[in-house]
């Protein structure tokens, strides 16, 4: 049995490594879109005769150390959360081993914590969004994350309750349907937010959103795969150490 301490430490370290990979995507795919959006913002500001905003942090710092720090901090937090979710799932997902369990937890986490909220409230590049509504938009985004987490809790409970009657596979499908219904109802009830002005280039918006998706995808995929691989390795080593005092076969 792996200790909780080792899982948490592993999760946070793996989160840091995943953040480095996510930075590569953010740099090559995301930054060009951010730069394009900022130049649109500046052109607009200049056209209306607005004074340029004082630069507290230079663009160079924002796109290098700033971005990397944000990803590392977020990655470590995500890795920590992941290890807790993994600890609950470990040994409780039928006969799944460490690598498959980690992959299932990472896929579910990505779908619940990221994909579900952004389908309702997609990420926006600079120059999109009214500063006066930031409070409301932030509250709605975090509410959507919270709803997704509650929905997955209800769905898991329902799935586990149904599993003796339906069997593991069908109970899982039933749980997914419960999740989809709860999320669908929330989508319908929560207000829509669209602050993209008509003249913002659709191409920049699309590629910004695709690259933002890519950043989170790489983060979650790397956490799931690295965590699974390392946990599997440490479990195997554990089995070998335990087996050593009783070597199989005698001379």
């Amino acid at each position: 049995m792996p200790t909780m301490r080792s899982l948490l430490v592993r999760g946070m370290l793996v989160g840091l490594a995943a953040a480095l990979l996510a930075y590569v995507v953010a740099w090559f795919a995301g930054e060009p879109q951010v730069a394009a959006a900022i130049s649109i913002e500046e052109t607009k500001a200049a056209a209306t005769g607005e004074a340029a905003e004082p630069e507290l942090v230079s663009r160079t710092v924002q796109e290098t150390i700033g971005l990397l720090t944000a990803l590392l901090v977020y990655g470590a937090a995500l890795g920590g959360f992941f290890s807790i979710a993994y600890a609950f799932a470990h040994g409780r997902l039928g006969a799944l081993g460490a690598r498959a369990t980690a992959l299932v937890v990472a896929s579910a986490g990505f779908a619940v914590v990221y994909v579900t909220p952004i389908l309702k409230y997609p990420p926006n590049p600079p120059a999109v969004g009214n500063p006066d509504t930031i409070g409301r938009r932030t509250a709605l985004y975090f509410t959507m994350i919270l709803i997704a987490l509650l929905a997955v809790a209800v769905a898991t409970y329902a799935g586990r309750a149904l599993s003796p009657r339906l069997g593991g596979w069908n109970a899982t499908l039933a749980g997914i349907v419960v999740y989809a219904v709860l999320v669908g109802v929330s989508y319908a009830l929560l207000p829509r937010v669209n602050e993209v002005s008509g003249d913002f280039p659709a191409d920049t918006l699309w590629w910004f959103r695709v690259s933002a998706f890519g950043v989170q995808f790489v983060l979650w995929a790397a956490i799931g795969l690295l965590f699974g691989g390392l946990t599997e390795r440490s479990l195997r080593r554990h089995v070998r150490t335990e087996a050593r005092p009783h070597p199989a076969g005698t001379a």
Partner: protein
Amino acid sequence: MAQPAIPVSRPLPVTIPVREILPWAIFAAVVGLILVYFVGAEQGATHLISGHTVHEFVHDGRHLLGFPCH
């Protein structure tokens, strides 16, 4: 029916008791939420530290991680 001895090549996971996970879960959740708050929302919708330096420093990360920024 003699069962052949199968060498253990793939360890089957043993569950970790919930009671052992809980204290770590609470600790990690508190620390994790504070970290996510600083990356995702500080000096945006709300602020603990005045000014815009934190917001500007994590600006690109906040956009690309999908949080509402400004």
